[in-house]
């Protein structure tokens, strides 16, 4: 059939047209600019406004950064060098960076918090990334005691004896498991507490006197700067997640007593501002405790910050539970799993995955809230910026100090935010 008409239609082309370049408005930078910057009157106006903003910032901040002065011993020296020109006086950072990072920690012991910081990264690695060998988790478990010893110093016995409490708890658990599961759980909780309350203290004294192995003790009022922010922030983060999960489970519990205690705790803590809790820690407790009692202020703050974050964390995790379809609970029941197995294997993994953005949100908030301790006289970076300004050399300097502090906080918070996005991507199992 086709042969019959092969030559009868005169206007069919036998050769292809040669390829032409696309119109210049549809390629390369021009197209990108048209589509992304000037695609309509509103976007054009916004683009122009944006360009103006950048130009304005550049004109004002450019010389300020370009004229940066690093070698100056005081603000007036900076001004002399600048001769009236606009310029940043980073001399204050050069002069005081160690205080912003470590507070009044003895200078010859800076290696201790530095090592603790890098060990913390090692300890966190197996928790954050599953490519890291699982055996490193043992180090993560020991790290809190090691960090305590490195930061506060003293003899090695106190952290070792505290660690022994957990070992004793483990042995109590395995020994009592033959009796009954309940007795094992109770034994695992009671034995370490008894150990810490009645045996660890005297034994520590005996061992410290007999074998004083250790490094110089440093009191927590010498802590300050980003060191204190990280200590409070990381401890609060590490402890608030497990406590928050327990509170969230407790709030959903069928047992009225557990449920009421959890609801009461969460609602009370959420109903009070953090600053109130901090004042309670620093002021009220002083009145209740016997005079002369030395209940470490940093410890008090860590406890309060942890409780505060845990209450928020509980609600974030509860949101994750609420988002799970009813069928998941029923499926767990249908498999014959008991409560803890159902939570551990089916419900919690899903609920936590859903709550990742909320959890990280709470973490970041907690880390930034650590600056509130300035109001109870602990010299965190913000408090130190005031103390540094009280020196005649640096009185009147503002932007450089706050800029440096903001940059450090940004690095930490942005890091946490990027990690949460990585984790969300990795755990993504939906079919969207």
């Amino acid at each position, binding site marked *: 059939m086709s042969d019959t008409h092969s030559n009868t239609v005169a206007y069919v082309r036998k050769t292809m047209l040669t390829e032409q370049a696309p119109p210049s408005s549809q390629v390369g930078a021009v197209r990108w600019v048209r589509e992304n910057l000037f695609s309509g009157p509103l976007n054009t106006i916004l683009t122009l406004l944006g360009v103006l903003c950048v130009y304005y910032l550049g004109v004002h901040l450019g010389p300020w950064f370009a004229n940066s002065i690093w070698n100056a011993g005081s603000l*007036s020296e900076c*001004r002399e060098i600048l001769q*009236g020109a606009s310029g940043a006086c980073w001399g204050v950072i050069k*002069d*005081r960076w160690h*205080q912003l990072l470590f507070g*009044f920690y003895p200078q010859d012991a800076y290696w201790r918090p530095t090592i603790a910081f890098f060990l913390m990264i090692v300890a966190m690695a197996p928790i954050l990334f599953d490519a890291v060998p699982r055996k490193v988790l043992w180090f993560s478990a020991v790290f*809190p*005691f090691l*960090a*305590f010893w490195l930061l*506060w110093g003293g003899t090695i016995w*106190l*952290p070792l*004896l*505290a660690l022994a*409490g957990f070992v004793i708890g483990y042995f109590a658990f395995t020994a009592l498991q033959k009796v009954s599961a309940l007795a094992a759980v109770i034994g695992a909780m009671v034995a370490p507490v008894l150990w*810490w*309350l009645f045996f*660890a*203290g005297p034994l*520590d*004294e005996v061992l410290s006197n007999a074998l004083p192995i250790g490094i110089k003790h440093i*009191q927590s*009022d010498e802590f300050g700067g980003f060191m204190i922010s990280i200590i409070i922030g990381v*401890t609060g983060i590490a*402890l608030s997640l497990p406590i928050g999960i327990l509170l969230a489970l407790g709030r959903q519990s069928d047992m009225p007593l557990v449920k009421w205690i959890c609801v009461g705790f969460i609602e009370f803590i959420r109903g009070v501002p953090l600053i109130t809790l901090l*004042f309670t820690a*620093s*002021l009220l407790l*002083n*009145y209740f*405790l*016997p*005079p*002369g*009692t*030395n*209940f*470490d202020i940093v*410890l008090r703050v*860590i*406890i309060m910050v942890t409780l505060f974050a845990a209450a928020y964390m509980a609600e974030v995790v509860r949101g994750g539970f609420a988002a799970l379809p009813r069928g998941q609970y029923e499926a767990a029941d249908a498999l014959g799993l008991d409560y803890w197995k159902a939570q551990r294997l089916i419900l919690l993994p899903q609920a936590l995955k859903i709550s990742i953005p909320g959890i990280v949100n709470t973490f970041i908030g907690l880390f930034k809230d650590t600056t509130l301790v*300035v*109001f*109870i*006289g*602990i*010299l965190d970076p913000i*408090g130190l910026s*005031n*103390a*540094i*300004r*009280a*020196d*005649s050399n640096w*009185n*009147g300097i*503002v932007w450089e100090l706050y800029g440096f502090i903001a940059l450090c906080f940004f690095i930490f918070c942005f890091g946490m935010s990027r990690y949460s996005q990585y984790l969300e991507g990795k755990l993504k199992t939906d079919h969207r």
Partner: protein
Amino acid sequence: MKKTVFVGAMTAAATLIAGAASATVLEDVKARGELNCGVSTGVNGFSAPDSAGEWQGFDVAVCRAVAAAVLGDPKKVKFVTTTGQTRFTALASGEIDMLARNTTWTMSRDADLKFTFTGVNYYDGQGFMVNKALGVSSAKELDGATVCIQTGTTTELNLADYFKANNMTYEPVPIETNAEAQQQYLAGACDVYTTDASGLAATRATFADPENHAVLPEIISKEPLGPLVAHGDDQWADIVRWTMNALVAAEELGITSANIEELSKGTANPEIDRMLGSSDDDLGAMIGLDKQWAKRAISAGGNYGEIFAANIGESTPIGLARGLNALWTQGGLQYSPPFR
């Protein structure tokens, strides 16, 4: 980690309770080997850490003098930073032995809060700072001005009283901290900045153009600043009070950190001999210290005048004149009862 610290704190608490039940502050300080002195988190010239972390300043010098008198070493001080909110609780609860944090001596603080003010180390008063371009030479001409004022302080109340008494109006610009006030004032958000005169001088010294700003002559309030201790231990209050008196008396008697060694060998003036412990009288024993206590206190940072000159005096960037804080013999208010 938490529990270990907790156990440590508990055991420490248990031992401290046993020890603190009956001891006096003096015995506590001696047993501890360290004076816990409450200071501010940073007030220019009065207390501030230098780049090595050493506290310096006019209030700090009082702590060092007391430590030198009691413990024999001006370095044996643990400086506890306190804020306006935490300072009184820290003192009442025994967390600090004394507070030297430019605190105004008022009746309610003395009587109601149950503290003992052991003297006045700086007579301050509230003043005004204006830009010279404003053409104002007296606070009486400030009718209708916008005023930068720290909220929640006595300065706020003093300002309202002053303007009301002089039948003037003003517009307050509330600010939180001194650093914020500097920025607001320099940015022109307010015509006038008001706070304690010593603070104004310190602030003005930080400006790029201090010559364009003037502190007006009117002082509208009395702010006697001094160290304080808690009620209940009169011996300790006496120690702090007489350490301060010794510093003032030393200036009056011409005892300086330079000549104190020579004078302590014995002089023609019996009062100097009594103070420095080179006569037979043992003044130190009356307050539970040894004969050399005043000598050590003065050696720590010099006499009152030397401390003033080194920290806030006219040769420092803050550049305060002695004014009310000159000795009574030179028209000021600093006056020490006799050492006898």
